[in-house]
């Protein structure tokens, strides 16, 4: 029989365990006398705590030392109980049920990813900014951007202009048409 550890019992005493862990622990406590005693000890400490908080003067160092001693005693008692039991049977890592759960988890993960990819999450409003990029100019807000590109033209062949009303221009000679081309983006 595998006993729950000290932390699990302490959390159970405070009602802080999750649903599945609580059900497992309750099942074990129903047939394990020693763990029930440890649980009772934790519950006793909990009941004493409200009273302690009302005590005007507490010697915290002394109390901490006592608590540490009690925990050590409890751990030692737990070791004694476990040493009397036979070693747990070696179990196979992957049984049919576990493999099915693992596969279901992967499928759920992938499905969630696809859903997140396609969803349009709500985003905080951000300011519109007009700026140059590596090979173009853009007006963008948050995740959205509108870019006009001057692909195939080196940066020193592009003359930039800025409009204080919220615009930017990139002037270059298009290598394919031979014409001067002026791309402009506007934030209006």
């Amino acid at each position: 029989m595998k006993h729950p550890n000290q932390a699990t019992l302490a959390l159970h005493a405070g009602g802080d365990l999750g649903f599945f862990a609580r059900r497992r622990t309750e099942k074990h406590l129903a047939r394990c006398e020693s763990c029930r005693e440890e649980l009772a000890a934790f519950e006793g400490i909990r009941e004493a705590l409200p009273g302690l908080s009302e005590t005007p003067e507490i010697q915290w160092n002394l109390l901490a030392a006592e608590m540490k001693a009690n925990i050590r005693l409890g751990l030692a008692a737990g070791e004694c109980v476990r040493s009397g039991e036979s070693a747990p049977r070696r179990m196979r890592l992957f049984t049919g049920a576990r493999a099915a759960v693992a596969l279901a988890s992967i499928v759920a993960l992938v499905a969630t990813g696809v859903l997140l990819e396609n969803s349009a999450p709500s985003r905080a409003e951000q300011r519109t900014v007009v700026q140059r990029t590596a090979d173009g100019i853009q007006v963008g807000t948050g995740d959205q951007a509108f870019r006009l590109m001057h692909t195939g033209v080196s940066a020193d062949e592009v003359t930039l202009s800025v409009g204080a009303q919220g615009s930017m221009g990139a002037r270059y000679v298009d290598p394919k048409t031979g014409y001067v081309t002026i791309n402009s983006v506007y934030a209006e």
Partner: protein
Amino acid sequence: MRSKGRRRLATLILLCATRLVAQDIALPKDSININLAKDSPVTVVGMISNESRATARGSLLVLDLHMALTFRNAGASRIHGVMLRVVSQEVTLGGKGSVTIPSMNIAPGEEFPVRIDMQLVRPTQMAGGPLVEVDLDGVLYQDLSFYGPDHLHSRRYLTACEVEAQRDREYLKRVLAQGGKEGLRREVLQIGARQQTVPLNVKVVPHGPTVTSAALPPEHPEKFALVEFPDSPVEALEGWAQVAGNEARSPNIEVRNRSGKPVKYVELGWVLSDQAGRQSVAASVPSAERDLYLPPDKTLSVRQETTLRLFSASGQPANVQKMTGFINQVEFADGKVWVPSRRNLQDPALLRAVGPSAEEQRLASLYTRGGIEALVEELKKF
């Protein structure tokens, strides 16, 4: 039997993972819509967009649109400039672009190519209908007459480009007449030197101040150093902007119409310099009023609620140390456009910040590809 099952499982997981990492599909032809009015003086002869693709990158969808368009001049006059408006309704609310070809010389019946390479990044899946709409915003003719809806002020823009082109061609013709081909060659090489990348980058955050960063020093008003052009029809009197660290916002410049004609548009050049004396590109500060009317001898405030952020070439914030302003463009009520003369732009305060004009860029490229003879032949055409 068991290994076969494992293989199937591995294939399933791999397929799902591939979908998560990347999705690359060709975009259908109806993703792009070219809208031309029935009386449009240009017609679409051909469109190739088969390299356009949609790619999923994480939760984002990246749409690469490559359009090779061919238009024909269906009018009776020579076309000297075209502006196309490019709009994507679903991406970046209010965001749009334009592709302009200035310095053209397209005879009636002649065809001309326009390439549009664009990228849309969006967080959602594609919806039905066209992703991009391309409209004709304006066409400028040799005699400076204009056709088009002019949503993006293409009339003024193309006219200014054409006036600059005439100015620069005349200058280069004078250089050729006085200094010969060698003199012209030297002048064209200087255009190439002015084409070098400006050391400071600018980001524009329109509509008011940005969220104040605790890292920025306190904001203070900084005065413009104004460059005076004696022949400018509008005079810049004084100006200032709020400056904090690498941010300069809300430029405000007082101007006076000293010409004899009413003015309907004024644009100022705005050059930012950092502590090391490095300059940004000249930002233009257009008058914001839609129905501006500035009579002779009257004054006006040109202002824009916008923030410029200054960065070095490596992306580090560069503190704004000095601001220079100059009159960059004036449009009169009769539609005529004034631009600075070449002598005006020789001012040392502007020389590095004001790049070559579109026409200078075209002629320098022509020289690079075809040599001095090709350049001389091109100048003779005008």
